[in-house]
């Protein structure tokens, strides 16, 4: 009997703990749980520049003022998972990954919603290019053919299907299947990877002999490995730095993508100004109540 009553007591405690997590009211006095990305992330690099979180010191070097107490995760999907599990979290992720994901909510920035139309007409403030990175020395026929497919009308149609803003004009050439065989390694940004997967599927359907391998390691890793030949094609979700261009990296803009500021669906906030975004992510504004004033 004693064992049974102990088990019952344990069950009650667990239930009490668990039920306390189901609190319905959104408590405005709670601290904002800021979620950020690792340093090599292209999304982070673009985000800190576009929102003013990054400043320049006296020597002209860039200083990243991201809040030191933020939660640093290494991947787009991890940001979305973290925010979806915490009502008081805020993070940032690529629009192409956020769109259609019902577990998180994208905020309007300066009253402008994060949509492809608003990125195209320039009203959405936080937009950055997706870059395909290659080097002149990379002459692998399968990789060059895959690149031709990506920049063709068919490839751009796949990009447009994935809620990204294409940059090529209607003069994009049509693609003719080459029936080559070989393997191509594409690696880099976790934000670009989803659309690259769709491009790979479409390409492999036309060219069964070529095998495309996609690795999600982060934008800076993508550029570095494209430069040293580990990847034939690199993916970066930001513009290339001067040092990278000087080392021989060539970037082709695949599409424009927006970075959404995401919160949990239970969060009543709908709109945030760009200045408030900066203040939240450098740690000046710390509670949800401070944001609503």
């Amino acid at each position, binding site marked *: 009997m004693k064992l049974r009553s102990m088990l019952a007591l344990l069950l009650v405690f667990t239930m009490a703990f668990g039920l306390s997590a189901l609190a319905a009211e959104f408590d405005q006095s709670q601290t904002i749980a800021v979620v950020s990305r690792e340093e090599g992330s292209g999304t982070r690099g673009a985000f800190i520049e576009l929102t003013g979180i990054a400043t320049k010191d006296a020597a002209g070097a860039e200083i990243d003022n991201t809040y030191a107490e933020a939660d640093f995760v290494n991947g787009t999907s991890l940001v979305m*998972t973290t925010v979806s599990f915490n009502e008081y979290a805020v993070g940032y992720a690529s629009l192409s990954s956020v769109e259609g994901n019902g577990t998180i909510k994208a905020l309007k920035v300066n009253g402008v919603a994060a949509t492809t139309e608003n990125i195209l007409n320039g009203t959405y403030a936080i937009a950055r290019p997706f870059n395909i990175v290659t080097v002149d020395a990379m002459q692998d026929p399968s990789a060059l053919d895959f690149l031709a497919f990506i920049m063709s009308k068919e490839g751009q149609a796949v990009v447009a299907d994935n809620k990204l803003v294409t940059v090529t004009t209607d003069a994009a050439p049509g693609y003719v299947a080459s029936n080559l065989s070989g393997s191509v390694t594409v690696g880099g940004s976790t934000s670009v990877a989803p659309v690259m997967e769709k491009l790979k599927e479409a390409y492999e359907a036309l060219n069964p002999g070529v095998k495309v391998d996609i690795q999600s390691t982060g934008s800076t890793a993508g550029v570095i490995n494209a430069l040293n030949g580990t990847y034939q094609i690199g993916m970066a979700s930001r513009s290339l730095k001067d040092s990278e261009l000087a080392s021989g990296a060539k970037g082709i803009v695949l599409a424009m993508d927006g970075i959404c500021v995401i919160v949990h669906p239970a969060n009543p906030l709908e709109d945030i100004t760009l200045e408030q975004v900066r203040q939240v992510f450098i740690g000046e504004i710390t509670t949800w109540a401070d944001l609503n004033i």
Partner: protein
Amino acid sequence: MRWLFLASACVCILAVAVICAFLFVNGMPFFTKYSVIEFLTGTTWAPLRNVFGILPMIVGSFYVTMGALLIGAPIGILTAILMARFANSTVVKVMKPAVALLAGIPSIVYGFFGLMLLVPLIRVNFGGTGKSVLVASILLSIMILPTIIQTSEAALGAVPNSYYEGSLALGATHESSVFRTILPAARPGIVSGVVLALGRAIGETTAIIMVAGNNARMPVDLLKGVRTLTVNVLMEMGYAADLHAQSLIATGVVLFVIIMAINFLFSFLNRRRVMQ
């Protein structure tokens, strides 16, 4: 046949030697370009500005590991004593496979478990973001439990029963006999189990990266985030270049030295006991 055993042992020693050599050969050039003292005592980690101070990560690893041992070692040792000397055979028959199963769970699954269950639990009940030294310690303690339980149970089982029977014959109670005669006799085995668990805790990466917050600054609070040496290497190795990459290998050297130091310390402590 003897040559087969010798060859196997040589492969083992060769593996350790190669890893050791790789670490030191690739890590030493870093120390010619960056001061060792500044590396080990610097409190700022800003690799993109060429500032490499890993003291925050060393302290972070230390806190998380000590926390895990403080929680996990007593629970593990007491569980082992239960399974060896106090429980009846049906309980032991259920517990043994349960502990073995716990040992077999992959680290990433522990990480998901921590992220989806422990982090919200701590966040709701203690405040903050939930990703903290506390959660990392709790998760690690669960991960090291099987190691401690299995080695401690083996150590307790190896103690001759005559110790226990002699104590009973002198009039001691069952509990007293177990804790005063069997446990001290099993101490070397239990200590080596704890050292193994410590080694696993210090080296754990995939589970910690999901629950610890990964803030590259000195740990400030039990309920605030922390970054360990291993997580630092994992997060940055993908994109590190030149000096940055070398600094991460140098971090590996530091980890290696720490583990070797702990092993030597404990083997020294054990030797004294055996001689007594």
